[in-house]
């Protein structure tokens, strides 16, 4: 048995891989099923960004709350939301995470600390401040984490939240998942500062930038920030520089991308390939163990898709439930 050079036990390495693999399988499958026309509405896929969700969420438990984005499937899976419930939700079925009333952009499971994917860019940041505030009143050491993309990092509510969290010294963490594009617009065009560390400093917060395709870099940086927040050290910003394999939404022709860009990032900047190469190279994990998890992921997603397709849609009466109908 090789000596483990990683800051995670073998069991946790396998857990992290399982999370990333499950997200990838989920997203690749949704991509294919969407193309067949079976999935209503629109979806935004997280494939390519798995190291961020897994690297951060490995440090969290159910008392910690996250507020996600429109590209939220990966955050949900890493936070422990059931993939079968999620797939049913994406298909708009009655047994989905939100009983078919939310869809891809609004998957939530508060029992898991998942406060919802969000169709409004930047809206999660104040909500995570509220989660952090609630954790502080409860005194349970929980944290609130909000995710935004580089696009939503320009929203007023995000910037206001940085200040509020700093002023109140909240156990709040702001993760900027910088995949280089706000929809089709390059980050280089739309964000005036070069570094999010500078932007954080402007609000009195410490900031860290990591290679978001490197699970271990994310894991390590997130670990320090989360520990500090739990101990009363206050908020921080974490920028994960990453890439997305698919377009802004499914159906996006991505003509704004450079020639050969997608092929290049799939071949050379795949966070899952990089993770596998590292753990196998050191001999901590065997190829067969990786393949076992791959098969397990395929089976789980196959079952989730089959279940979602067969599940009944919500009943007509469900239109009028879960809200006070006064009129």
């Amino acid at each position, binding site marked *: 048995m090789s000596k483990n050079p990683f800051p995670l036990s073998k069991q946790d390495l396998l857990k992290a891989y399982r999370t990333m693999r499950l997200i990838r399988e989920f997203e690749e499958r949704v991509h294919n099923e969407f193309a067949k026309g079976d999935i209503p509405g629109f979806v935004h896929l997280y494939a390519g960004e798995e190291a961020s969700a897994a690297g951060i969420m490995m440090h969290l438990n159910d008392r910690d*709350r996250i*507020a996600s984005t429109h590209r939220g499937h990966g955050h949900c899976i890493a936070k422990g939301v059931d993939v079968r419930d999620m797939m049913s939700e994406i298909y708009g079925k009655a047994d*989905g*995470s*939100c*009983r*078919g*009333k*939310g869809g891809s952009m*609004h998957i*939530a*499971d*508060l*029992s898991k600390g998942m*406060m*919802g994917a*969000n*169709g*409004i860019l930047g*809206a999660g*940041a*104040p*909500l*995570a*401040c*509220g*989660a952090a*505030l*609630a*954790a502080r*009143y*409860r005194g349970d050491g929980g944290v*609130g984490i909000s995710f935004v993309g580089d696009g939503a990092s320009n929203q*007023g*509510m995000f910037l*206001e*939240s940085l*200040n*509020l969290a700093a*002023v*109140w010294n909240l156990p709040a963490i702001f993760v900027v998942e910088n995949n280089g594009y706000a929809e089709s617009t390059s980050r280089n065009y739309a964000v005036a500062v070069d570094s999010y560390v500078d932007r954080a400093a402007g609000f009195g917060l410490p900031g860290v930038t990591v290679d978001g395709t490197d699970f271990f870099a994310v894991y390590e940086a997130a670990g320090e920030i989360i520990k500090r927040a739990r101990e009363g050290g206050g908020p921080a910003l974490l920028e994960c520089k990453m890439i997305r394999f698919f377009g802004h939404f499914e159906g996006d022709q991505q003509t704004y991308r450079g020639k050969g860009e997608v092929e290049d990032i799939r071949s050379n900047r795949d966070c899952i390939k990089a993770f596998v190469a590292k753990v196998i190279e050191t001999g901590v994990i065997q190829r067969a163990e990786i393949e076992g998890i791959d098969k397990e992921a395929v089976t789980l997603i196959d079952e989730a898709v089959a279940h979602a397709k067969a599940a009944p849609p919500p009943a007509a009466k469900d239109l009028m*439930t*879960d*809200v*006070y*109908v*006064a*009129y």
Partner: protein
Amino acid sequence: MARKISMRQALNEALDQEMSRDPAVIVMGEDIVGGMGGEGEKDAWGGVLGVTKGLYAKYGERLLDTPLSESAYIGAAIGAAACGMRPVAELMFIDFMGVCFDEIFNQAAKFKYMFGGKAETPVVIRCMVGAGFRAAAQHSQMLTPLFTHIPGLKVVCPSNAYDAKGLLIQSIRDNDPVIFCEHKNLYGLETDVPQESYTIPFAEANVARDGKDATIVTYGMMVHRAIEAATDLAKNGIDCEVIDLRTLSPIDMDTVLESVENTGRLVCVDEAHPRCSIASDVSAKVAQEAFGSLKAGIQMVTAPHTPVPFSPALEDLYIPTAAQIAAAVRRTVAH
């Protein structure tokens, strides 16, 4: 035991009693304590109108002064509500909703439905409404109709201290987001208010005056103008019923319909603009449900479709008057 106290005191008492009863109740807003971070008095203001004055001494950090940053703190109140707290956020003026509207109508209002019933958002957003303070176009609006339009929100607008206390306590205990509208001309008005805690259920209108000839339906400050009009009309033998809706969403249409079935005449009074207002909403519902009872066309008395003007000469023309309400009633009884 009831004693006469102002609406300001009644609201303060409601917050005090709920904070004492339930540790999940927290209060946040701009200057709700006042003087934070400075060298002078803490609790310098207790809110711009003094509603939260004195609570900081009793509850300390459960009162949170916020930066001038409505998007962040209203969103934080909503996030905390989704995580088990019962925040009461003071937004000062309803006019400021514009900078944090997303948090209210896309987040708080939607969570329960959008998450399939698996989330509750027990947040109260208190704000001042209404004209008459010479506060001009951005500090004087009656935007209640904007919020009644949004499913998932509840909208409350008391007309007196007694209702204010009971409705605020009910709002804090309610599991849905509540927009609690306080008319700025009513804070000093004193009525009999019991010392002990009590609630007033939502969707229970108050018949503020009984009458048989015409029904006046309104809420907030306009209740007082309507009663003034009714008192005046009574001298001429016209007997008006005045209904104070108290809550606009949910709304008690049963009391309105029952009254119109008795009187056959309806005047809807609203300090909001005429289009898509509470007045037009109630009018439409009555036309739909009680057309056969109507002896005359429904009349509406509202503010004009203009921003609120500054000059006292103009603002006094903007706000519906008792004389306008009385004239509208006379138009209905002429038939």
